[in-house]
């Protein structure tokens, strides 16, 4: 197994081993192996329909791989339902933002905190009998406001989340993911819909988040240029297969990668419509 260059001494926190996922006849991901070092920011790139989101869905428990395994900090994730994956310390965002759109910005983040909440639901019905539960609720509210301030959303705390501008919604989704207190953050095209300058700003901000929250971050990016600046290591997928991996410099000059990106002359659509809609 190859290790990211210069990171040989680092711990591998997420280990994907020979993962294959088929949708009927379509091999969405084929024999993929990835080792993500602790504390790194790494990227998963590839053209439309390469299988990037599918990899995220396998890691986070939405899809069970046809073959292969995913380990997180030495424990198997394969077969765990999504909420257990979150409990284990992985959190994610979605390519098409999935906020709780009827709830306020603050409530969205509080919902994210719920997985770490110790008080039981019925304890909050009797605040005088269970003062600790009430205190915890207050702490969650305060902590969520703090988190929002960190992401520059404090002003909008009481706004309904769907009323936020697009960029702020993306940041809120990250805030909500952070509220689950993850050790590992998976970001699916965090810079989608932004211009190159905004994208670079966002990715720099993501780097800061990694340092502030002690995270390992794996992000999907469509635009190769954007990802080069921030990622320490990159995997390139094309049609479900890993075609290259390495540091940004080696990826940039890899002929196979260039061909994968330039070779496809017509943009691929959303692909075939499956029996169940893909989670994006």
């Amino acid at each position, binding site marked *: 197994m190859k290790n990211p260059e210069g990171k040989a001494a680092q711990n591998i926190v997420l280990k994907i081993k020979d993962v294959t996922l088929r949708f009927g006849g379509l091999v969405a991901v084929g024999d993929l192996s990835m080792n993500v070092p602790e504390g790194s920011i790494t990227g998963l790139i590839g053209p439309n329909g390469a299988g990037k989101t599918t990899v995220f869905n396998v890691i986070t428990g939405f899809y069970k791989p046809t073959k292969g395994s995913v380990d997180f900090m030495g424990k198997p994730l394969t077969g765990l339902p999504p*909420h257990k994956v979150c409990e284990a310390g992985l959190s*994610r965002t979605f390519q098409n933002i999935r*906020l709780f759109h009827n709830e306020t910005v603050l*409530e969205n983040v509080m*919902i994210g905190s719920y997985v770490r909440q110790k008080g039981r639901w019925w304890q*909050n*019905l009797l605040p005088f009998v269970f003062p600790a539960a009430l205190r915890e609720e207050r702490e969650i509210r305060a902590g969520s406001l703090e988190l929002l301030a960190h992401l520059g959303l404090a002003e909008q705390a009481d706004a309904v989340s769907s009323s936020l501008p697009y960029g702020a919604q993306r940041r809120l989704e990250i805030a909500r993911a952070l509220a689950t207190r993850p050790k590992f953050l998976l970001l699916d095209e965090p810079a989608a819909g932004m211009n190159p300058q905004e994208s670079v700003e966002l990715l720099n901000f993501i780097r800061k988040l990694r340092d502030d929250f002690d995270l390992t971050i794996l992000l999907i990016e469509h635009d190769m240029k954007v990802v080069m600046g921030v990622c320490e290591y990159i995997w390139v997928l094309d049609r479900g297969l890993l075609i290259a991996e390495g540091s940004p410099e080696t990826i940039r000059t890899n002929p196979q990668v260039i061909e994968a990106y330039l070779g496809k002359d017509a943009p691929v659509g959303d692909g075939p419509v499956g029996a169940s809609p893909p*989670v994006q």
Partner: protein
Amino acid sequence: MKTKIRNGILNLLSLGVLVYFLWWAPGNLDGYKLRIINLIAINAILGLSLNLIYGMTGMFSLGHAGFMAIGAYVSALLILTPEQKVTMWILDPIAPWLLNFHTPFIVSLVLAGLAASFLGWLIALPVLRLGGDYLGIATLGFAEIIRILIVNLTPLTNGSLGLKGIPAHTDLWMSYGCLLVVLLFMIRLMKSNFGNVLRAVRDDEIAAKTMGIDTFQTRVLAFVIGCFGGGVGGALMGNLITTIDPKMFMITQTYSLLMVVVVGGLGSITGSVIGSILVTTLLEWLRFVENPVTIGSFHIPGIPGMRMVIFSVLLIVIIIFRREGIMGTREFSWDWFFPTGAPGEKSETKGVGQ
């Protein structure tokens, strides 16, 4: 802090008004009006419990009449005296073990809720796994099965003859006392972070799972709590009307409750209370369309079931033109009457007895 004290005082005041009204009403209103006022509280309890399932957690359930039936029968069977039971069971003798079962009313109320919860849990486990639209169909079928079981299990239920002479335990104090407990429960529940979680499960299941929420367990829990309310509501109703039979718990009963929830606003506690006031009075008022009327020389015979037709049409009209109901998902707040509250002090206290 100021608004908090203000709201506290206003809550106490409205509670005082309610208590005064409950004390004044029995001596000054006739039995028919008192019954409607009682029914408003009971329908509010039932509406709130259905709202928890459908409005707050997003599970379209059509089984509430079934859970009411369970509650009504469990309660009645527990408080009827052995003598009453012996004389009432004409077709088949009553099951011997049931004959001497006897508990105080309050105990029977709790057991009614628990029985409904338990059966709700049994149906939720397989059906909620399927998710989505299956629940509506399954619960509809479930309610019908319960009704048919009641008709046929004569040694337990006295079949289609029903149960008569149930002591009239439900007075205004009882029904509004229960409503107050249910209201406090719902307000605290929906204001806690768990309330946020319920709404999250309703709004986006995939995102909720990603946030570490066991959506299946959460749904089961909300459903079972809602069933408890259904059972208690059914028991209160049985003890108000003093006679129950399987015909009381047909699908039309579920429709009226659906109406309460939809008119008031899916997901709004205040809405269910307002919805109950409107729907209960309207249902009574509409009884005239079922009575024969003579206008001049025209004689129109009464059409039984006509008010449910009008009701269903109304339900469709609301769903087409004002889907969010009267309240939407909003809640009552005293701030409505104080347009410029102190800035930064967002009050979230809700009125009681409104």
